[in-house]
Each structure stands twice: as C-alpha cells, then as structure tokens.
C-alpha cells in the first residue's frame, strides 16, 4: 500500500512538471533569462506548490505519525553553513547551463531519453563523488538530512 501511495505521489509530481512546463528545459531557461526574453510563467509553479504545501504541511504534521512510518523526518538544522552556500551556488550554475534540475531530469528520461540519459548519468556521478567526499565528516551526510 505504501508503495502504491508513493508511486501515485511520483505520478502527480511528474504530471505537475508536465502541466506546468517545468519538464521543458527551454522553458526553464526562458524563466531564468531575466535580462533577455524573460518568460515569468514558471514563477507560478513555485507559488502554486508552496501555497498548497504551506497549508498541507501544517495539517499533516499535526498528526502524531505519518501513515507508513514511525515518525516524521523533518530537517531541523537552521544554520546557513559554507556547504549550503557552495552547494546551492554550484547547483544553480548547473541548472542555468541547460535548464534541468533533478526532478525534471528524471521525468525527461522517458520523454527525451538520449540527452536526459547523459545528463542523469553525469548527475549521478557528481552525487556519488560528493557523497564520498562528505563521508567521515562530523556534519551529517547530505543524503538523510535537510531535504
């Protein structure tokens, strides 16, 4: 049952990317092209998602436990450290180069297999390298926190 629910969440997320146009890198670049032919429409994606989620998050986390897990795993850190700044900067550069971020890249695997596949393989390689590098540090691994 848990797997079915999560599969449906993935479907809904991905259809959201398709309906909004976020799955299309050309549209993302046009959104980021503030000083050129700016297409502001994708700002409404974040607006729609955040508005819905602000209310949903409050409602859901009022419950004692989630449906299929022992408790909520919500990031608690509030410090803005060097890793956050460096990581977010690098991610933005990569996003701006082509217009793909992780969600749309995974969705694009089945919509535009060739190019998306190359991007995703490079992304996975980058993730593995960064995970290896952060191993053994006192700070928590990026994989399980602060998402």
């Amino acid at each position, binding site marked *: 049952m848990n797997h079915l629910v999560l599969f449906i969440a993935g479907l809904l997320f991905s259809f959201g990317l398709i309906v909004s146009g976020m799955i299309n890198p050309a549209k993302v670049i046009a959104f980021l*092209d503030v000083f050129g032919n700016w297409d502001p429409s994708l700002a409404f994606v974040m607006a729609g998602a955040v508005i819905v989620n602000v209310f949903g998050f409050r409602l859901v986390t009022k419950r004692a436990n989630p449906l299929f897990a022992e408790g909520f795993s919500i990031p608690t850190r509030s410090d803005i450290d060097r890793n*956050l700044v460096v990581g977010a900067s690098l991610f933005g*550069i*990569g996003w701006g180069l082509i217009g793909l971020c992780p969600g749309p890249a995974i969705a694009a695997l089945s919509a535009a297999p060739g190019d998306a596949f190359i991007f995703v393989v490079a992304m996975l390689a980058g993730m593995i390298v960064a995970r290896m590098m952060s191993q053994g540090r006192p700070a928590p691994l990026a994989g399980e926190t602060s998402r």
Partner: protein
Amino acid sequence: MHDFLAALLGGAMIGAAAIIVMASNGRVMGVSGIVSSLLPPFGKDWLTQNGWRLSFLGGVIAAPLTYLAAFGVPPVVEMNAGLTLLIASGLFVGVGTVIGSGCTSGHGVCGLARLSGRSLAATLIFMTTAIATVLIMRILGLGGLS
C-alpha cells in the same frame, strides 16, 4: 490554457505530491535527496530504507509514458545542448545538490513551505547563480537561447 494558469495548476499538483509524501512517509519530497540516497556509499538495509524512494521515482518516470500513451506524443522537452554541456551541467547539479542538501523541490518547494531559513537562503542562492549563468551564456553566445 494560459501559461500562468497551467504553471499554477502544475505547481499545485507538485505541492499536493509533497503533502502525500509527508503524510505517508513523513519525509520531505526532495528529488535530489531521494535520488542520491540510492547511491554509494550504501547504508544498511538498502532496500528497506529505499523502497519508498524507488516507488516515488517509478511514478515520476511513468507519468511522461502515460502522457505518451494518452496523447500519442511525449510531453515537450527541448534542449539545445551538446555532449560537453550535458555532462558539465549534470556534474554541477549532482555535486551541488548533495553538498547543498537539496534542489528545486527539496529547498524550493518543501523548504519554503516549512518556512526554513536554510532553504530560503539556498533557493535565493541557486536562483541567483542560475540567472547569472543564463546571462553569461547569453553574452558568450552559448547554449540554446533564442
């Protein structure tokens, strides 16, 4: 449908998906975290820990296929990038999202909704460097800008 309305509707669907993930598994719907948690170095009980992540990603990949089956054409995905650019951007995104603990969905959608200062900072930073990158690519005449 007008672009703005479609974007708002799609965004609401993304927000709803994040609510489902939180309600069912108590987790933040951050795609970079969901993907990178599957990768080495592996933790204990890989399959038990990652089952929900695999199911979610299955849904993400299935949606464009469902779209294709329903409409006979895949959703529009246009990119004008050569091999070097694809690899470079993938590496930046992969390294950056792991070091920075999140991407557009984790920090942008979920973090902002949780009113997280860290996520607000991350979102402002990656929006800024992304906009700067597009501007520089435009000045250099690279990339797929029309």
